[in-house]
C-alpha cells in the first residue's frame, strides 16, 4: 500500500521517470501520422491534407509548379519542347479586339505627358441637366473606361519608369472623377425634384389617383409602388374596406371633385408625370 502511494507520488512529481520505463505517449494526431512507430492501430483510411482525391492538386500550367505525377527520371527538361509563341510581326493584329479599350487612341503602350494633358475641363452641372438619363448613363461608362485606361497606364509607368507624366495623368483622372461626381449630383437633383412633385401631387385635389367609372384617371401612373413609393390605391381600398358602407362614396369622391373643378372653369386633371 505504501509502495503504491510512493509510486504515485513519484509519478506526480517526476513524470520523466515514468517515460524512461514506458514508451512515450504521442502528443498529437500529426505526430501519430508522421511516426509509424507511434501510430496507433486503426483500420480507418489515413487522413490527408486535401481529401478530395484529386491527383493533380497543386499542379498549374501557368504558375510553374512542375509536373509532380510524372516519375522522376523518365522525362528530362531537354526532352520537353518549350512552347513557341508566334511573333507579333508574323501575325495579323486584331484591330477589333476589345482589350484595345485599355489603351489610348494612338494605341501606344504609354501616353506622353503632352497627350495626357490634351483635355478640356470636366462637365458642368448645368450642361448635364439638359441630358437624358440614357446620355448621362453612357457618359458615366465612358468615364469608367477612361479611368481604367489611366489606371492601366499607371501600372505601365511603374514597369517602364519613363520619367515625367505621372502628374498629368493624375490631373486627367481628377477631371474624369469630377465629371462623374457631377453626373451623380444631377441625378440626385432630378430624383429630389421628382419626389417633391409626387408628394405635392398627392395633396393636389385636381389630380385623380383612382380610376373613375369611365376608366379615366390621372396621372397615368400605373403603380406608384413600382417606383419605390407607397401604393395609394391599395391604401385607399384598405380604408374603404375598413369603413364598409362608405365604399361607394370613396369611389365617387375624386371624380366629383374633378367635375367641380372643371365646372369652375379651372384646368382639367393634369398629367404631371
Amino acid at each position, binding site marked *: 500500500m505504501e509502495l503504491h502511494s510512493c509510486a504515485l507520488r513519484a509519478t506526480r512529481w517526476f513524470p520523466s521517470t515514468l517515460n524512461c520505463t514506458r514508451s512515450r505517449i504521442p502528443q498529437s494526431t500529426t505526430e501519430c501520422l508522421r511516426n509509424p512507430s507511434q501510430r496507433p492501430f486503426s483500420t480507418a483510411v489515413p487522413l490527408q491534407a486535401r481529401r478530395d482525391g484529386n491527383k493533380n492538386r497543386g499542379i498549374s500550367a*501557368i504558375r510553374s509548379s512542375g509536373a509532380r505525377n510524372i516519375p522522376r527520371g523518365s522525362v528530362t527538361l531537354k526532352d520537353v519542347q518549350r512552347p513557341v*509563341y508566334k511573333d507579333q510581326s508574323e*501575325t495579323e493584329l486584331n484591330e477589333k*479586339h476589345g*482589350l484595345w479599350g485599355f489603351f489610348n487612341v494612338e494605341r501606344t*503602350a*504609354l501616353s506622353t505627358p503632352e497627350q495626357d494633358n490634351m483635355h478640356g475641363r470636366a462637365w458642368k452641372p448645368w450642361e448635364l441637366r439638359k441630358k437624358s438619363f440614357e446620355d448621362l448613363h453612357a457618359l458615366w461608362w465612358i468615364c469608367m473606361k477612361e479611368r481604367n485606361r489611366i489606371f*492601366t497606364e499607371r501600372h505601365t509607368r511603374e514597369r517602364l519608369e*519613363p*520619367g515625367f507624366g505621372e502628374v498629368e495623368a493624375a490631373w486627367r483622372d481628377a477631371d474624369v472623377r469630377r465629371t462623374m461626381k457631377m453626373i451623380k449630383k444631377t441625378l440626385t437633383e432630378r430624383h429630389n425634384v421628382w419626389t417633391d412633385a409626387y408628394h405635392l401631387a398627392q395633396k393636389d385635389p385636381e389630380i385623380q389617383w383612382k380610376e373613375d367609372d369611365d376608366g379615366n384617371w390621372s396621372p397615368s401612373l400605373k403603380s406608384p409602388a413600382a417606383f419605390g413609393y407607397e401604393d395609394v390605391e391599395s391604401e385607399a381600398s384598405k380604408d374603404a374596406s375598413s369603413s364598409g358602407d362608405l365604399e361607394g362614396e370613396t369611389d365617387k369622391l375624386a371624380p366629383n371633385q374633378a367635375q367641380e373643378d372643371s365646372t369652375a372653369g379651372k384646368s382639367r386633371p393634369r398629367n404631371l408625370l
Partner: protein
Amino acid sequence: MREKLDPNYQAEQEALRAAREQAKADADAERLRAKLESIGIPEAPFFMGQKEVYLPNIRIALLKTPQHPPSFAKFLVPLTWNKLDLRDYLWNVYGVHAVRVRVYVQLQRVRMDKPREKYPAARRWFRPQSKKFMTIEMDEPFYWPPDPEDFVEWDKDTFDAANKTKIKERDSRMPIGAMEKPAGAADLRALAKKFVTGSEKWTPPTDPFGLDRHLKK
C-alpha cells in the same frame, strides 16, 4: 379538403410554384436581354448575371504578362470581385469573351505605420489591403503594343538627374550623410602624408584672403 384526399397535392403545388418562379426568371432574363440588345451588346455564350448595376465606381487595370501566351490577359481587380463579375464586365463593357478565369489574391507586406503618416512610428504595424489578380483565357489572342524605344517625350534624363540630386540632398541631411567622406578626401590624405614624411614642405599661402587685388587699386 383535397389536401387530405390527394397525396400528390403537395408535390403538384410545389411544381406549380417552381414553374411560376421559372417563368418569372425567364421573363426577367428576356427583358434584360432586350435591354442589352438595345444598347448593342450581343448575346453572351454563357449565362449572364441578372443583377443590373447602373453606376458602379470601380476601376480595373490590364497588366502586361510576357510570360503568358497571347490569349491570356491579367487584370488587377477590386477585392470584392469574383470570376463571374470580371467575365460579365469584360463582355458588357469591352466585348471580350473570357473563356476561363483564374484568381490569385496577393497578401501585401507588413510595413511601418500607415501610408502618408507624418511621423511614422516604430512597431505600429500596418498591412496594406491585399491585391486581387485575375488571369483570363480569351478566345482571341491579344498582342500588346511595343514599349517606347526612348523616353525623350517623358524627359527621362532630367527626371533621373533631379531624382538623384534629391536623394543626395536628403542623405546629406541625415546622420548617414555625416559618416560619408567629403569629396577629395583621398587627395587631402595623400598630401598630409607627404607633409609628415617631409617629401613636400608646407608653405603658408601668399594671399589667403585675396587682398592683393584691393591693395593694387
